[in-house]
């Protein structure tokens, strides 16, 4: 029973974290779908990354 409780607890925790991660990620998207802060390492020696 204890193992079941722990499993359920952590499953719910993981599901919540995954939902949070997805929401957090999506709120950071530009119009072209690219992540706003994910330009590196492409910006070190060239133009900005190609758009979608």
């Amino acid at each position, binding site marked *: 029973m204890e193992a079941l409780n722990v499993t359920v607890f952590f499953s719910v925790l993981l599901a919540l974290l995954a939902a949070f991660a997805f929401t957090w990620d999506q709120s950071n998207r530009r119009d072209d779908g690219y992540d706003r*802060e994910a330009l590196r390492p*492409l910006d*070190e020696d060239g133009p900005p990354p190609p758009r979608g």
Partner: protein
Amino acid sequence: MKAPATTVTYNDRIVRWFALASLGWGAVGLFAGVFIALQLAFPALNLGLPWTSFGRLRPLHTNAAIFAFVGNMVFAGIYYSSQRLLKTRLACDFLAKVHFWGWQTIIVLAAVTLPLGLTRGKEYAELIWPINVLVALIWVVFGVVFFTTLARRRERSLYVAIWFYIATIITVAVLYIVNHLSLPTSLLHSYPVFGGVQDALVQWWYGHNAVAFFLTTPVLGIMYYFIPKAAGRPVYSYRLSVIHFWSLIFLYIWAGPHHLLNTALPSWLQGLGMIFSLMLWAPSWGGMLNGLLTLRGAWDKLRTDPVIKFMAAGVTFYGMATFEGPLLSIKSVNALGHYTDWIIGHVHAGTLGWNGFMAAGMFYWLVPRLWGTKLHSERLANLHFWVGMIGILFYVASMWVAGIGQGLSLNELTADGSAPANTFIETLKNILPMYHLRALGGGLYLLGYVLMLYNLGRTIRAGAPVDGTAEFPAEPAPAAEPVFAGFLNAPVLYTLGIIAAVCLWLLGRDGWMLTGLVATVGLTVAMVAHFELKGYGWKRWHERLLHHALPFTLLTFIAIAIGGALQIIPSVVLYRGTSSDQALEGRLQRPYRPLELAGRDIYVREGCYNCHSQMIRTLKPDILRYGAGQGYSRLGESIHDHPYQWGSRRTGPDLAREGLLRPDLGWHYRHLLNPRDLEVDSIMPAYPWLARDLVNRGELFGKITALRTLGVPYKAEAATPAAIQADYDEQAKEVVKLLADKGVSARTDQEMVALLAYLRCLGANLAPAAPAAR
């Protein structure tokens, strides 16, 4: 008016050196792997020589693959990408050279000492103590080069690849030092300070996290740098990489006990190991998806670009291996898979698929740039990909079939459930064809690797070394905030506060637990409110932390230290008892007599633990097969073993109670001389030198003194040189007489006699009527 610029020339020379070293040592490691795979299929290939026997060459293979091949590849990748991400040249060329030559010296020393049988007897931690010291020193040099470069950076914010490099440097240092704590008995020999269950726990805390922080986190950093560069696309999700990083490094460190499921390891540790291994699914797959989705919009390159092909396959193998790992960590699945070839297949999916293919992708991208030319042949690189891929599939599939097949056979009981249904040798016979296929798969992988060496060799010959350059505005870098500002900022303080509150919540009792819970919730709410009300938001919260390398490194250390500390410290405190002569679980091992100790050191020297476990799991098939009527192995039965010898693979049967199961020393003598004289299908090497070589008795006093220092309860009067000699002679004569009764002529000073004395005492060396520990 255009601002004046300053040109930075990167130190790519050191990158070239490490790349060439990795390529060279990789061939050695893979060849050794194919050779020992062939030894398992054709035991005559052990050649009857000490330094070519499987038990000594297998550590050579694993060390070469991990520390020489992947190690040098990781250093090349880190030095190349760090300079560009931090927009500065390495801080000290001299120390970088010391790092390179020091690391190659370590590898050469390993390649010499391991075949000579100089070993600590712990997997992936075999190297003897003087080399351990050298490894620690060189690692510190690496850390100094990296962190001083970090301090000089022009780019304030640390990119995700750098986070993984920081975690690697910090964690490997912690793991390596703790697991290599030893008490030397001579220049070439030492005993680990931990014994029995503690040694097992520390070993797999290290062993599992060597996979995590030497084979995974630096390669993830390389993935986060090289895949966007090769694909010309930004990382799919920066925010996913934040979650990936912190959750991965925090969770990974707890998972070590999953290597010890169903053993004498206390069940609370087994439970923790399993739960955290299962939770690892999420960050591992988050990282895999982040890597693969970075290729969106560039999938067409998979058809033509070998770099993308290798890296996409490498990341996919990472996903498969990190799916399989948690699966194998479920206790019931582990009951089937542990000690079988399934584990061998699992780790090779990781090393050949993830590490090997990521290395190939990186080298195909890097070598042309480092030598200022084009890749000699893309077609040859594509051929390498397919030959290597087929090789991996042969390897992994054959090990799955062998492992699951043998696991099922070994666990099968007779109809009335009173005995095992199959003998060990029958199960081995059934999987031998898979061993041939495994050797074929490994051979194909090696062939692909040789194609890469040829291709890159031609590329290098066509070009000339080129050091990368970059121009930056000449104005001085923005002044860094004072160190204390780095510590005393809201993100760091909130994080530390919440960690402390969670610890109080989880570890405290009654009022303290409630206080911890309230503080955790309160601080979390306060943190969110603080940043939202001040208009920062989550992005700024972490971004600010990334501007401060020192607090970032400190938080990384805390994240990786929590799991290890909470698992290891209680086990060290609780399970040794207040006195080393108290029984654990009703049993207590007596200290080895001098002759037995000499035999045990020979057992360790020959690497017997590579194929034989000494751990009867809490499973009925194990108990019926190996238990000798004494049930499963208890904590107290191996508590004085420095190092522990529970093993991780049963290519041969378990030996925990061999002294009870097979007391006939004449059989053992003949079996060790040539196993196939007694068991025609055996694949065990022959050990003829054990009947020829003599025990060095002069070492025993120092060894027993060292063990006494470590807490093994030898009586003072039994630990004098004269007493040791007398006891040795007495027992050796007894063993020689037992052999004579079986028609075997032996001498008291033969190594064989010592080894037989050790085998005879296994399972029969319990102290009588020991008082119970608290």
